[in-house]
């Protein structure tokens, strides 16, 4: 009975040693000064493990020895209660403890770190893993690339287009999305001229301009040319995004830049619907919005380049826009703040585009080089050509929609 009561008041882990609060309400200074009393408080602790040992003494090999040591010291303390002797009693305990195998962390750690040879070996095998059998020139190429980036030893064109970054990062990152996620099917890639200026005019949809990026990837993969997109001024106001857009070959959608690029023989992409197209509600999908003021047509006529009407099916479904918060959008200075079935409901998860099946068709080029010099300043002609392009895209959209079996396959 008293044993149980004593066992209850001794906290687990301290083994009832002096100086630790035993929970019995005794002051700790008292227990420190009076060795005899602490010895007494040790006794019940010893009794219990003895019982345990009798049950299974093989598995608890350490514990009994510890208890033996405690028992050896306990009588000594009882005989000589002065503190100095207590200090001598401590060394007596140590040798008895040392009889068991010492458990130290010393052997577990490698002493001198990783030898350089092994480190080098690991590096080479990592390089082999990463770059394949022909790893050495490839690694050298990679290091040279890294050095060029770090020392600024690369060139950008007048618009800030960085071909290396576009090829190695932007397009490489978008390509799996285009092939695996949206399974883009491209038709009429032969309508894109292999050289010289041309204007790709496309419908715009999908809440964020993924359709433009996917068109750029498709054109790069099918014709080897870089698409130079024309973007809204908002794009260039945004940090990081504006920088990436310029690196990826975009420039401001204005007549000066469009004409300059077309004269330079670039393949320029334009989305004349702008924010009206990209931010339109899901219910109005595949209905072309107004085509701006036809500035792209006058740019094409002035430079005499063909217009390639392009229809993108599939982008409407990636983020179905079911709502808009105009007040917050105005506050943030953006044209719309989208609500999709999953955003902002699911937070960042809602940013994953739905894996719709995409079809991109590049239509028959519309020639503009037959018009006379002042044709670009004739508003009636410009409106007519704009309508022609718009109608062509709209008709192709309907045809493609009929051909598509379902949204996701």
């Amino acid at each position: 009975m008293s044993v149980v009561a004593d066992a209850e008041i001794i906290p687990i882990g301290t083994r009832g040693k002096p100086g630790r609060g035993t929970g019995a309400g005794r002051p700790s200074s008292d227990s420190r000064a009076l060795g005899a009393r602490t010895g007494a408080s040790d006794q019940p602790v010893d009794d219990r493990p003895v019982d345990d040992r009798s049950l299974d003494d093989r598995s608890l090999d350490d514990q009994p020895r510890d208890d033996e040591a405690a028992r050896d010291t306990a009588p000594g303390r009882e005989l000589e209660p002065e503190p100095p002797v207590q200090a001598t009693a401590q060394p007596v305990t140590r040798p008895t403890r040392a009889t068991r195998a010492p458990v130290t962390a010393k052997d577990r750690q490698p002493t001198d770190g990783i030898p350089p040879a092994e480190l080098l070996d690991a590096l080479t095998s990592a390089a082999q893993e990463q770059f394949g059998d022909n790893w050495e020139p490839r690694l050298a190429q990679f290091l040279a690339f890294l050095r060029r980036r770090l020392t600024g030893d690369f060139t950008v064109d007048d618009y800030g287009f960085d071909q290396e970054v576009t090829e190695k990062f932007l397009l490489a990152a978008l390509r799996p999305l285009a092939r695996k996620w949206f399974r883009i099917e491209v038709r009429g890639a032969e309508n894109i001229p292999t050289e010289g200026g041309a204007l790709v005019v496309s419908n715009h949809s999908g809440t964020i301009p993924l359709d433009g990026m996917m068109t750029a990837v498709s054109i790069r993969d099918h014709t080897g040319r870089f698409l130079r997109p024309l973007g809204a001024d908002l794009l260039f106001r945004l940090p990081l995004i504006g920088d990436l857009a310029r690196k990826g070959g975009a420039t401001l959608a204005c007549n000066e830049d469009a004409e300059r690029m077309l004269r330079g023989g670039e393949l320029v992409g334009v989305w004349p619907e702008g924010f009206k197209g990209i931010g339109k509600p899901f219910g109005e999908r595949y209905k072309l919005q107004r085509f701006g003021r036809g500035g792209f047509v006058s740019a094409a006529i002035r430079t005499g380049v063909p217009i390639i009407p392009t229809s993108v099916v599939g982008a409407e479904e990636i983020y179905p826009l079911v709502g808009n918060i105009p007040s917050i959008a105005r506050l943030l200075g953006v044209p719309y703040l989208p609500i999709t079935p999953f955003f902002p409901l699911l937070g960042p998860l809602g940013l994953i585009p739905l894996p719709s099946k995409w079809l991109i068709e590049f239509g028959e080029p519309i020639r503009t080089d037959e018009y006379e010099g002042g044709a670009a300043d004739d508003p009636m002609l410009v409106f007519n050509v704009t309508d022609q392009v718009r109608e062509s895209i709209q008709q192709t959209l309907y045809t493609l929609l009929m051909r598509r079996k379902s949204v996701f396959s």
Partner: protein
Amino acid sequence: MGQVVLVTGVAGDLGRRFAAKLSGSADVDRVIGVDMVPPRGDLAEADFVRADIRNPVIAKIIVRERVDTVVHASVTSTPAAAGGRTSTKELNVIGTMQLLAACQQAPDVRKLVLKSSAAYYGASNRDPAMFTEGMSAKRQPAGGFAKDVIEVESYARGFARRRPDVAVTALRFANVIGPRITTGMTGYFRLPVIPTVLGFNPRLQFLHESDALAVLEHATLCDVVGTFNVAGDGVLTLAQAVRRLGRPTLPLPGFALPTFGSASRQTKVADFSPEQVAFLTYGRGLDTTRMRELLGFRPSFTSAQAFADFAASLRPGILAPARVRATESALVGALSPGKGERRG
């Protein structure tokens, strides 16, 4: 008979070196340098007259010396030189007004060359990639050097209207850079840590100081009239430029940079005025077709070469290209024997 040329702003480095260079030219009889303070360096055979262009005495000098060509090179963006923004503005705008008024009264003046700046175009997200001379700032500047330049050019245009017999040439310089010149931009690149606007990578164009002198001389001696952008070929992005220097950058959000600028203004090394921050955010590109085809001037340095010449005069930073290159070859060297062991 040669020309008699009056050069304003000879206390400035560019003005002084231009006056000295021009005085050696065979087509020029006499060069008179004017400024409020004496130039610190050599003026060669040019004469110096200490005068304030805001003072009517400048009209007397022009008439008495029978000046036929005026090169107005004192429009400056560096407030430190003139003792603060207010007096810089006074000197730029009122100085130009007075100088042009004096020229209007002078019967001998046949030519005016104005050293202007590409700051005329401002910098915004609505800018075209390349500005041609016919364009203007997409966002009108509220103040600062950009506004000075716009006003100065409008006075020059007014003067050209009133004196159709005078050939007026305005040269809009891109950022002048080089080992010997001190401008807001060189001060910026000389900072040990270069603050940039977070998330923006502006396109920059540079004009080498020797090209700046050459184009001023070219415009003074030839008879071409009009406004011309002057810049080296090609563009560099700010990130590219900074990496070529090998200096670390400190990207700050756009709104924080002017605050940082006002804190560092005391040191008078770099310029972080609102229009400079806009420039460091959006950058600017100049179309130089007219410079090549009408003015007939070809800069000998591209933007990249001009910047490289400037960078060579600086102590290389911790990420200097030479060091990166050495690290690369060390890495390649260390990995190659590893392959040899494997084979052997």
